């Protein structure tokens, strides 16, 4: 009954492992294998494997690629050395966010250089058409969608790096944070990137679709004695929430600009021209009208996306964008946009489906891994 849902190259593994599958952005993906909390804790204390093949992977080849990406992104891509990875936003001309993306500058073993952009699954088609619409001005650039041909696997957790160290020709522990390289695993080509979406150390691997089950199994085997588990979209969401990483459709959308979302660090506004630049410069000058904050609702009941945030007098000043129980803290956490002049209030209230609870502000992120 998979009515036109796309399948990950790892679909069979998930089903054999007893995963509960859910439709997500046109893909049938694992929500959880056992318990979301158990998978979350495994990632925080040991390591977890996530199939993130549903994310879009778009390759840029040819002269002018850097200029095209500079035109599209809130940060500079030209001048990025081979091996660098950069987080940036794609905005519309009003500064609203079309997507948040990672761009890597890579070099194949034969010496060919290209850029790879990883986009959110839910925005994949939109970004492809947005990029294609710009191509007239960049006639030598080739844009190819690599999503169906490849799979993407995230290995995240404090034991991830040590356990997978010998799996690849290139030792991943030599890779710095936000660096990527092309290597191979028993002659299967792998893009190895020291990035992630959990707040833990780890890597993300991009492999050929046909190699994905073998690579996944090999990472699982390497991690067996370290207690690696497979984790689904459920744990991925609670992990990113604790790490206060924005999720498109929650903290980001076409109405929200990156400065309001608290992503000033991902915008280079000086001496640059890109789509949305003047809108963003204006917001930067006047200051965003809203601010993203962290809240700890009292009690056990989680506040969810859409719950209204009130000031101490009960006046509506904002809205929860993401919220749920934090398995690490053992209590509910929430991120919210509140009007800028209330952002430093010492106390808030949240209307959780008709019941008002007190919520204390807390610095983001809710969880930060111990520094090593």
């Amino acid at each position, binding site marked *: 009954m998979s009515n036109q849902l796309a399948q990950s190259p790892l679909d069979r593994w998930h089903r054999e492992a007893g995963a509960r599958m859910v439709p997500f952005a046109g893909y049938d993906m694992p929500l959880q294998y056992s318990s979301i909390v158990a998978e979350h804790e495994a990632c925080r204390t040991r390591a977890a494997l996530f199939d993130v093949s549903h994310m879009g992977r778009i390759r840029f080849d040819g002269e002018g690629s850097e200029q095209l990406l500079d035109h599209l992104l809130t940060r500079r891509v030209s001048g990025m050395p081979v091996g660098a990875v950069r987080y940036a936003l794609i905005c519309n001309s009003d500064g609203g966010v079309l997507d948040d993306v990672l761009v890597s500058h890579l070099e194949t073993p034969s010496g060919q250089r290209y850029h790879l952009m990883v986009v959110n699954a839910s925005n994949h088609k939109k970004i492809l058409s947005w990029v294609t619409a710009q191509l007239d001005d960049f006639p030598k650039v080739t844009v190819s969608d690599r999503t169906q041909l490849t799979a993407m696997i995230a290995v995240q957790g404090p034991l991830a790096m040590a356990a997978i160290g010998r799996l690849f020709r290139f030792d991943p522990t030599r890779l710095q944070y936000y660096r990527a390289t092309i290597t191979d695993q028993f002659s299967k080509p792998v893009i190895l990137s020291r990035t992630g979406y959990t707040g833990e150390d780890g890597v993300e691997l991009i492999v050929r679709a046909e190699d994905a089950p073998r690579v996944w199994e090999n990472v699982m085997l390497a991690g067996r004695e370290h207690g690696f588990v497979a984790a689904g979209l459920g744990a991925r969401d609670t992990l990113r929430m604790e790490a206060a990483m924005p999720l498109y459709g929650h903290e980001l959308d076409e109405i929200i600009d990156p400065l309001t979302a608290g992503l000033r660090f991902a915008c280079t506004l000086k001496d640059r021209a890109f789509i949305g630049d003047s809108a963003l410069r204006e917001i930067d000058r006047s200051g965003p009208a809203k601010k993203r904050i962290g809240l700890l609702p009292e009690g*056990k*009941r*989680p506040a969810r996306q859409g719950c209204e945030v009130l000031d101490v007098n009960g006046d509506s000043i904002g809205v929860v964008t993401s919220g749920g129980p934090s398995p690490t803290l053992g209590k509910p956490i929430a991120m919210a946009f509140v009007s800028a002049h209330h952002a430093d209030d010492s106390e808030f209230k949240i209307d959780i489906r008709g019941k008002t609870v007190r919520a204390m502000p807390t610095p983001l992120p809710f969880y930060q891994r111990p520094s090593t």
Partner: protein
Amino acid sequence: MTRDESKLLYAATHEWAAIEGESGDRVATIGISGFAIEQLNDLVYMDLPEVGRSVAPGEEFGEVESVKAVSPMYSPVAGEVLEVHSELPDQLEKLNDDPINFGWMIKVRLSSDEGIDQLMDHEAYQKQCAESQ
């Protein structure tokens, strides 16, 4: 006394009811099925009604929340809430082990038969669960 799950009545929305007593003074004990609890997984919060509230069949009497989502719970019967298992929300982890004994949520004094003929026996409910898998 241990309840026998095969003797319970079930709503399509996964609540169970154990109806005891003589006509005119009947009390329904209500909870949610083990199947529903397993589907919800990782429960974090439960909201139960006050004693004295009246409920109608299909009316929301409380909600249960997992890591991922909030689910309303609906009364399978008509009547007045006589007793509430108020310790349950603080011991949600025990609900997994014993949804029909320890896991009872409310007792309702029936005001009529309304809703009861809509409920399924254990066999029919199991069939519904198997089909939804």
